[in-house]
């Protein structure tokens, strides 16, 4: 069995040098900005570490700054993990905005200073120095690793290289021989928890399995 090597990541924001003051400009921006920018405003939304009203930066801005709650809800309903590429996600986001614009009048622009700023990010990934060789070590590590490591493996893990499951459930299934436990982690709703809430939940699920194993004759 290959051990689980805990890594962590840090990002620095980079401006995509584009702003949007209206829904039309937002649509134009979503259509034209780099994949890295779409990626940042959707998949990396979880970097904030808190559950907010909406589930990506576009929805949050439309809801908070333009007070267009219907569109914000529609955009929030787009689950980035449903797509196998950023381009497919971009297509759906633009379709949602276009559909809204065809049915509702263009709302007021954002107030000066509240425009949407398109960004990207540069990520550095580095090891925590913690390695788990079995389920018990994995559980112990989950208690003490930094939240950025949970973020990296649970969220970014689904999208580095190929789009797929998170690193934790992947390791549990492929290396630790725990497909059932892997399935439980895979079914956690990624939108409903902040990082610490997620840590507690993962620990709870894994601990239950470790306890059961220890009690089994």
């Amino acid at each position, binding site marked *: 069995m290959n051990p689980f090597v805990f890594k962590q990541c840090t990002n*620095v*924001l980079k*401006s995509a*040098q584009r702003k949007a003051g209206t829904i039309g400009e937002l649509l134009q921006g979503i259509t034209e900005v780099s994949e890295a920018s779409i990626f940042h405003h959707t998949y990396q939304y979880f970097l904030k570490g808190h559950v907010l009203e909406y589930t990506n930066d576009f929805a949050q801005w439309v809801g908070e700054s333009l007070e267009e709650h219907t569109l914000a809800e529609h955009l929030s309903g787009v689950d980035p993990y449903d797509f196998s590429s950023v381009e497919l996600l971009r297509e759906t986001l633009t379709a949602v905005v276009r559909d809204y614009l065809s049915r509702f009048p263009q709302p007021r622009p954002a107030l000066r200073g509240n425009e949407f700023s398109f*960004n990207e990010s*540069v990520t*550095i990934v*580095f090891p925590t*120095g913690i390695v788990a060789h079995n389920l018990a070590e994995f559980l112990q590590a989950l208690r003490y690793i*930094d939240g950025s490591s949970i973020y990296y493996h649970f969220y970014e893990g689904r999208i580095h290289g190929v789009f797929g499951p998170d690193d934790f459930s992947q390791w549990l299934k492929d290396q630790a021989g725990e497909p059932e436990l892997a399935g439980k982690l895979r079914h956690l709703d990624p939108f409903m928890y902040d990082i610490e809430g997620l840590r507690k939940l993962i620990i709870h699920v894994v601990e239950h399995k470790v306890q059961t194993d220890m009690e089994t004759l």
Partner: protein
Amino acid sequence: MLKLSDYAGISPKPDLQLLARLADKLSPKRLLHINSTKEGGGVAEILNRMVPLLGGLGITVRWEVIRGDQRFFTITKKIHNSLQGLDETFTGDMWDYHFTVNEKNARTLDLDADAVFVHDPQPVPLIKFRKNGLWIWRCHIDVANPVESVWNRVSAYASSYDAAIFSVSKFARQIPLNEFIITPTIDPLSEKNLDMGQNEVCKVAEKYQIPLDKPLLLQVSRFDRFKDPNGVIRAYRMVKKYNDCRLVLAGSSATDDPEGEAVIREVQEFADGDPDIHILLLPAFSDRDINALQRMASVVLQKSLKEGFGLTVTEAMWKGKPVIGGNVGGIPTQIMNGVTGFLVNSEEGAAFRIRQLLNNPDLAARMGENAREYVRNHFLITRQIRDYLFVWYAMLNKSKSVLEL
């Protein structure tokens, strides 16, 4: 002298780990910071801390300050104001002089380094005298809505750099180069932010004759109309109908600022002798007193109508206080509405949020805890130093958006 290890247990461990790793990768390269003052202002404050810390990590780091006469600094003050949208008069001579003073400085300063961080518009023309290395322009001010003609002059220099750094996305302006966003930070080990015992807090309350008999609302800021001190008093009066409390408005006496004095008089008149309103004119170097005032407050306000980054918000959040801030400038970057504090757009909104917090101590405590953790993760000086090295390292690996260390 401060060492990175002094921040262990305070700053997030991954920040310290990454800082050490990046320094290791970049060592023994030479880093040079250039700004226009050794003392006073947030930039000098941070550099004073950052330079020895980086030196301790094996980076050869120098900090140079450009010299200029009164004429030069009058011109750069006008440039500073115009970049923030204020209309000032400029002549061609003034721009020539701005360049000439930088040219003179370039002759005496040692500009030989592997990475050069040039802070703000005063030394921005130094790029014309670059010898080698990577040059990064660090713009600390909001240039989103500048006087165009002034911006064109400054950006003509800025566009020769390899990268630029702005404090908040919305403060940035398009230049054809890599633009990074790095927020300002506070130093948890400075006098203004160090932990403090209740005894000292009580002594400061006595010193300023503030009885700690009822909940305290506090705003710390310059006496400036953009900080809306009278709006804060109006919000306090709305609250007072429902909750007994005191209000402290604390700021520097600003004897050199005639407008500041006029604002103080307006605020005093508006307070109308209310014994529960305390208007404090703090002398310079009152950092410890400000620290204590923030700790004795139940709710901290920063109800600005216009704001730069507004680091007083982060200072209060670091003390575990729920902060109610105006939805302007850099305040929304610090306050995640409803999670780490409240954002408001009116006096009525401020009054309502104050009442909510005073009547719900659990909510106030939870928000204060979230606020402190948010500051720990985003707004401590170690993160800012980490990000400077990060940008330097990222620029050396330009084409990659994910870097493995």
